[in-house]
């Protein structure tokens, strides 16, 4: 096991920069997810850690050793790919033992390594099968087995669950997390799914357009997003953003209706964006009037999409009394959990 340090890492394809200097410290044994929308550079960054992409600038260190220019096989890492990348003509056991075979390990050593990994992942019964005879989840487990057999210093996962159906994804999520708790190997995990990132990671790196927007523990990002991008990306459904002005200790919307501000922000007097998460809106007779557009009950809670003027606002209620479409409801934000962002910069003021 080892720590991974990225220092001002840059990547450019020709004259087109895609990663503009990313600095991240990953501690020994930590589970870190790189999360962001498509094209934010998270996969490229992972592939640079793996050695599959050249580094255009900065430094990558694994276990204190600078690995810029070191080929993948000498970095002591293992990678799990989105499409599993299993060798189709090899059995599960051969797939898992292939790296040991290339290392010229003895047959016994190879068998022992494969057996150990197979037991960890309950693959023992499938060792003689070919990848084409396995389901998506089983293939993904074999790909993880192949990584475990190598006993690497760092595990790299590149959107490993994207090809699985929703139910299996949740199940494999738990398995990967359990695996990490058991092996305690430093893990870098790339995903575009913020739920995956939140549920699995010790630390989340939110990326956008080749830059790191914020690094922090899942709840840190949820409770204290650094800017509107992180606030909108972390949390599902996404945070509601309302444009207006801070005036006289209140937040005044474009139509003149007002929302409360936290005490620490009551001195502000400028244009701003008011951010409140759907789950932090409660029904209250003296609240903001909304017209219900769509009601989506999911059992435990109900998602209500409502309109205030031209603005769409999503609320989540846990009470059993469902509003009807067209009905007017009044909601009030939990003022302690309200965020206010600078209108031009998007940074959080509260």
């Amino acid at each position, binding site marked *: 096991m080892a720590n991974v340090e990225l220092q001002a890492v840059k990547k450019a394809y020709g004259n087109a920069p895609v990663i503009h200097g990313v600095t991240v410290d990953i501690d020994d044994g930590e589970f870190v997810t790189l999360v962001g929308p498509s094209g934010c550079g998270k996969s490229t960054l992972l592939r640079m850690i793996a050695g599959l992409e050249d580094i255009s600038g900065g430094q990558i260190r694994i276990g204190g050793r600078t690995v810029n220019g070191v080929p993948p*096989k000498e970095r002591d890492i293992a990678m799990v*790919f989105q*499409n599993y*990348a299993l*060798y*189709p003509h090899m059995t599960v056991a051969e797939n898992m033992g292939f790296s040991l075979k290339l290392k010229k390990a003895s047959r016994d050593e190879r068998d022992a390594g494969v057996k150990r990994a197979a037991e960890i992942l309950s693959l023992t019964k499938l060792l003689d099968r070919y990848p084409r005879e396995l389901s998506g989840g089983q293939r993904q487990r074999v790909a993880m087995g192949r990584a475990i057999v190598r006993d690497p210093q760092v595990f790299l996962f590149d959107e490993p669950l994207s090809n699985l159906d929703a139910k299996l994804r949740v199940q494999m999520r738990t398995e990967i997390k359990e695996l990490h708790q058991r092996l305690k190997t430093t893990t870098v995990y790339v995903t575009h799914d913020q739920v995956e990132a939140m549920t699995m990671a010790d630390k989340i790196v939110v990326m956008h357009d080749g830059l790191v927007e914020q690094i922090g523990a899942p709840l840190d990002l949820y409770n204290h997003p650094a800017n509107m991008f992180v606030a909108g990306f972390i949390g599902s459904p996404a945070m509601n953003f309302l444009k207006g002005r801070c005036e006289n200790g209140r937040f005044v919307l474009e139509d003149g209706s007002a929302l409360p501000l936290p005490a620490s922000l009551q001195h502000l007097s400028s244009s701003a964006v008011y951010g409140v998460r759907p789950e932090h809106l409660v029904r209250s007779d003296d609240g903001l009037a909304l017209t219900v557009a769509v009601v989506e009950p999911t059992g435990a809670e109900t998602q209500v999409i409502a309109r205030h003027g031209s603005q769409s606002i999503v609320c989540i209620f846990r009470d059993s009394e469902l509003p009807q479409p067209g009905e007017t409801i009044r909601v009030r934000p939990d003022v302690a959990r309200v965020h206010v962002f600078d209108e031009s910069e998007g940074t959080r003021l509260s």
Partner: protein
Amino acid sequence: MSASHTQTVVAGSEASVLADTPATRNPAHLSWAPFLWFAPAILILFLVTLYPTVFVGWLSFQKTRYYDLTGFVGLTNYVEVFSSPAFWNTVYVSLVYVAGSLAGAVVLGMAAALVLNNAGPTGTVLRVLILFPWTLSMSVVGSIWLWLLNPSFGPIPYLMQLTGIDPGLMLGDPGLALPLIIVVTAWWSFPYVMVMATAAMQSIPKELYEAVEIDGGGPLVKFRYVTLTHILPTLGSTALTLSIMYLTLMTLIIVMTGGGPLGSTTTLSFEAFRGTVQAVNIGPTAVVSIVVLLINVGLGVVYTRLTGRVTG
């Protein structure tokens, strides 16, 4: 009507279902219709393929005098052919020709595919240029090489002389004629192997190569465990199609050597052609054709098995 039909199905009585289907209501019309639809295809198949094949089979049991049939001779033609050393020499030449051309075409085609697959846009342009020989008429290919290899004024013997090698008679040398024909055949057909191999290579997910890199393999491991295993089925069926083609191919031989010198380039197909044109009794020639046919059917069966395994 539809309601009663449903009822019979629900009742599960097979007989009543059958009784209610249109087929039994108008048997005369409907029993003929499928055959009518098939008739054109069957007719064309019969005229173009089956009839000539059956005719050759029948001919192999006949004695002829030029184009006159003189009578049924049983297995005499077979005995005559199979006991003739010249026939076995022809079989040998055919096998060497097929195996040699195939080896040349596959090695060249694979090499071209591997090199050009990693050459980006340049590779695409070069691939089009390399396809050129394949698009040429085989008699043109033969004529080009006849000129290139001409011992008196051909550029290749001239270059050989410059480097101090005695070019000899080239296609006129009984020891050299077959290898040269093989080289020309391989040159003409390797683009086909290249195209098929390239297509197969381009369907290989690039993550497999990356997985090998991470697992600790170099270029040889990538080729052996990813590229080759992936394209082997395609390569196998390509090789079989080419074998079938080489076995029946004779234009190059007609143009370049006429089967000589001293029968050193007389393949089975060339012998079948020569016999048909020159022999008084076509019976033995028909036997040679049947041998070619049987070998090709054998290869065809292997081919079907192979593609069946690939696709199924």
